[in-house]
């Protein structure tokens, strides 16, 4: 059901904007291109920033750095009681959306779709955003290269999301 609502939102939003604008006597078709033509420039402007970010992230993932970090962090995780299986997901979710979904699918396949660990992983994935991609696209679109607090705060929010996903899932699924 949620999926149906979600699919309906965009068409409904578009038709609402157009009806309201027509009611306000805006010539909708004539006005559309004025805004729309910026779309090309903005998209092209993002390319250098996105290439820089995505190449770095892809190298990081391909090198096996995430597995290495996993091995290094394992004792810490066992100490705080985080399932080690979730670590690759926790480390990947800020870097790559498709990567995180792939890892989630593996966890779900290995443990069953209704297992508590799968549900925990689902919460961890559901509230994640690919922080580095978002920063590259949004800052890239306006040509900002000095991110100041955005990067630190983004990482802190990601860490908070991981910890909260674990704690809240522990209370609700176990």
């Amino acid at each position, binding site marked *: 059901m949620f999926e149906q609502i*979600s699919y309906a939102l965009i068409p409904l939003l578009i038709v609402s904007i157009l009806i309201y*604008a027509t009611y306000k006597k*805006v010539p909708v078709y004539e006005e559309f291109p004025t*805004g729309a033509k910026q779309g090309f420039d903005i998209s092209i402007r993002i390319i250098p920033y996105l290439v820089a970010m995505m190449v770095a992230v892809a190298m990081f993932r*391909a090198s*096996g750095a995430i597995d290495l970090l996993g091995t290094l962090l394992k004792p810490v995780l066992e100490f705080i009681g985080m399932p080690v299986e979730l670590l690759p997901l926790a480390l990947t979710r800020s870097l790559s959306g498709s990567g995180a979904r792939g890892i989630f699918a593996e966890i779900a396949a290995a443990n069953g779709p*209704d297992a508590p660990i799968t549900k925990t992983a689902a919460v961890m994935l559901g509230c994640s955003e690919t922080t580095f991609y978002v920063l590259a696209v949004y800052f890239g679109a306006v040509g900002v290269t000095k991110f100041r607090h955005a990067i*630190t705060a*983004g990482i802190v929010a990601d860490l908070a999301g991981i910890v909260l996903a674990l704690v809240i899932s522990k209370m609700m699924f176990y």
Partner: protein
Amino acid sequence: MMNYIWLFFIFFSVVVGIINGKMKEVSDAIISASSSAVEISIGLIGIMTLWLGLMHIAQKAGLIDLLAKVFSPILRLIFPSIPKDDPVQADIAMNVTANALGLGNAATPMGIKAMEGLQRLNPNKKDTASDDMCTFLTINTAGVQLLPVSVIAILASLGSTNATDIILPTILTTFGALVIGILFVKLLIKISPESKKGGKKNV
């Protein structure tokens, strides 16, 4: 800072790649990631064009000003240096709402419009993020999510019988992470010396 983070990612990858004997994978990743970055950007053109056109219509119809007025009281708590009723508030509100509803495709053009608005108000040099940009992107990177539609879909496709019971914990988690992120960015803004001269210009 980004200079060091970028260098760290690449340097660490090369070192680990050598240790792991994965230099072929690293090398392939460089080539495929650079082309997929371009493909993603090109792929954005369509949806970006559509939404920027629609948002221009919404602006002409007075919808943007209306939304800015409605959301101004809340948004000015979080973004103190945006002037009252500035249209950028509508872009921020639409971006956050679209993200929360899981409409990532529509959220990106709205977010970029918001960034352009914030850049117009930026008291710093144009290559340097303003305090409000940092706050706005913290909200975006925290991944506000009310309906984790895609995750529920994956769970359901794998045969989960009660996939929707992740909704409440996801909302709680995302909201908690959002609050922590905002408080943290506000703290950083407060303690950083550079924010003092520029950040409060419009209050």
